[in-house]
């Protein structure tokens, strides 16, 4: 039977607990959000001992199901002040699932200034004082932990940003190449830092295959599911070839590529930072155009990017990062953007929040538009070192806007708005406004239907149908985030009729249950409502479900679109 591992950092004790019946059917986001809602006082300070940091693999993680190896991390967010779930690939999720660990709950905080590491194994968790690796970047931590405990050790770590409790700090997860994937958004690295935990190691010794109630049925469903993933042109061909960065040119053509801190919708230098250019560059320099963030990913949207000398620069080089440091900061040098991506991984800071922040910092005059060298300097000399300026920058877009008196600050609930302009792609604006997570494109990715013609088509420039589209996608996404599946399974799931039933069949075969499509839908609704209730108790109500005013008053070229939803229309979202 799966267990809950509980770690108390106040009295430095650990426990292994049975899984309460109410949590048995939950995994991933459904479980982290349920635990946070049940155990964290919504009004607590996110960096206080009252907050809890929860890790949970998904319901299908550890099985042979394709793309099921994602790990959810949850807590109250120091950035948004609301509930947070952020999921990532890497090796940790599958290791935890195979060790029979349903969730790790970390509570309390040390009473002294000492720092610790947690060692997770089949037998439980031990808490060890850590001195040697303090202050180090994430790559050095991963190398050192491997040297100490063995190459196969799983690692969750924070960099200097997390140690300094910056609200843009993330939690890094070791990937199969000993590089990094991130629980990026919402400042969860600061929560780990507040508990004075530098890293968590996972020893896979004693890991067993997860039990499957009906192996034959599982195999059939898993095969149908993989086939759907490979058959769909987006997951089967587009993502592996160009990665997510293929979107630069598409959004630029559609006039929805936020440029120069969201003042225009197209970027002159788009071709230099596009997915097509990146693909050719990677191939020419001997990098890897396709690569998976965890074993069992058959889509492989990730890649390994090399410099001119053919040396590793970064991997998992995503559209949102390239858009943000590129178009939004007017930088058309992909090599410098790749270097910044690597630095952000090492410092342990969210690459979306930080990219949006740099756009605001340029508007504030901290550095010039397009100055990629100064951007790199600010990352290494200010943010990584935690100078006063570095801490302001490491607080994210809203922090810089507030400190420097900038009014054009693209955030919702304090979290930076990513790579799609809500004026010219209106569905995603509804997602930014209403998501329980703050501005987050992944929580209801209407771009699929607004721009990519996946799951039908809803005109991005009109208001019609956007609230319903965002609602349906947010409900489905909350459920998918509970399975351990990568969200890109949504592309085939929206178009190929066999895909979603196969996913549900896998869950049923794994646990010997009989969920229907309605049950899965209800799970998604339950998760959103649980998160919303936490947020309301924390003081985030419908008045926080709004985009910044400038989207209403500043039309964005080329379509001269404005954000024109009324408050009542936005609030319709929650009618379910």
């Amino acid at each position, binding site marked *: 039977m799966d267990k809950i591992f509980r770690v108390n950092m106040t009295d430095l004790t650990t426990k292994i607990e049975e899984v309460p019946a109410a949590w048995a059917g939950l995994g991933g986001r459904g479980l982290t959000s349920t635990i946070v809602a049940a155990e964290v006082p919504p009004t607590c300070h996110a960096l206080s001992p009252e907050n809890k940091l929860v890790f949970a693999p998904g319901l299908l993680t550890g099985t042979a199901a394709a793309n099921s190896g994602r790990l959810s991390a949850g807590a109250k967010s120091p950035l948004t002040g609301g509930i947070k779930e952020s999921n990532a690939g890497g090796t940790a999720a599958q290791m935890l699932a195979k060790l029979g660990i349903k969730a790790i709950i970390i509570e309390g905080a040390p009473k002294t200034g000492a720092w610790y590491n947690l060692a997770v194994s089949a037998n439980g968790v031990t808490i060890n004082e850590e001195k040697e690796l303090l202050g180090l970047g994430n790559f050095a931590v991963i190398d050192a932990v491997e040297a100490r405990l063995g190459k196969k050790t799983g690692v969750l770590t924070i960099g200097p940003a997390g140690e300094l409790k910056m609200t843009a700090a993330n939690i890094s997860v070791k990937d199969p190449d000993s590089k990094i994937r991130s629980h990026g958004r919402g400042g969860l690295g600061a929560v780990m830092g507040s508990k004075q935990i530098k890293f968590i190691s996972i020893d896979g010794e004693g890991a067993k295959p997860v039990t499957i109630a009906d192996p034959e049925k599982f195999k059939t469903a898993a095969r149908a599911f993989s086939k759907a993933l490979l058959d769909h*042109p*987006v997951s089967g*061909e*587009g*993502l592996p*070839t*160009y*990665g*997510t*960065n*293929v*979107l630069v*040119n*598409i959004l630029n*053509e*559609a*006039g929805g590529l936020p440029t120069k801190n969201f003042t225009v919708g197209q970027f002159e230098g788009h*071709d230099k930072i596009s*997915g*097509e250019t990146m693909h050719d560059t990677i191939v020419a320099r001997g990098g890897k155009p396709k690569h998976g963030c965890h074993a069992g990913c058959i889509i492989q*949207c990730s890649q390994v990017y090399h410099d001119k000398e053919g040396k590793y620069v970064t991997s998992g080089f*995503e*559209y949102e990062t390239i858009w943000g440091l590129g178009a939004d900061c007017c930088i058309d040098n992909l090599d410098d953007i790749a270097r910044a991506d690597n630095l952000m991984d090492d410092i342990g800071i969210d690459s979306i929040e930080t990219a949006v922040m740099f756009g605001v910092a340029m508007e504030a005059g901290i550095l010039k538009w397009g100055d990629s060298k100064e951007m790199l300097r600010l990352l290494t000399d200010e943010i990584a070192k935690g100078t006063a300026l570095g801490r302001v920058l490491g607080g994210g877009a809203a922090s810089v806007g507030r400190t420097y008196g900038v009014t054009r600050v693209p955030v919702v609930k304090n979290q930076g708005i990513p790579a799609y302009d809500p004026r010219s792609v209106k569905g995603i604006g509804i997602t930014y406004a209403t998501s329980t997570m703050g501005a987050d*494109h*992944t929580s209801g*990715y209407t*771009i*699929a239907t607004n*721009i*990519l*013609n*996946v799951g039908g*088509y809803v*005109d*991005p*420039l009109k208001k019609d149908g956007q609230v319903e589209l965002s609602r349906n996608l947010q409900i489905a996404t909350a459920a998918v985030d509970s399975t351990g599946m990568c*969200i*890109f399974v949504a*592309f085939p799931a929206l178009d190929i009729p066999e895909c979603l039933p196969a996913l549900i069949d896998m869950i049923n075969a794994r646990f010997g249950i009989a969920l229907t499509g309605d049950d899965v839908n209800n799970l998604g609704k339950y998760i959103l409502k649980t998160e919303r209730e936490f947020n309301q108790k924390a003081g985030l109500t419908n008045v926080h479900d709004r985009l910044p005013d400038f989207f209403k008053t500043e039309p964005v070229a*080329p*379509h001269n679109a404005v954000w024109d939803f009324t408050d009542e229309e936005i609030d319709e979202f929650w009618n379910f």
Partner: protein
Amino acid sequence: MQITLKLFATFRNGRFKVAEQELAEGTDVRQVVLSLGLTEEEIGIVMLNGRHGELDSKLSHGDTLSLFPLVGGG
């Protein structure tokens, strides 16, 4: 009439990124697609002057037509 034709992702292989094209009046998107040796099924997204277009959309002088295979990200 003249239009600007932009191709993206795999459509560029063996073709071009962007080209000016001289077309007969009344040409529609489908005819341009077929003239490139592409099939209707291969077309993921048609954009005409930055808005979603259809294979049946008629082209006018000065239009920008952008063709994408089905691709995505997020």
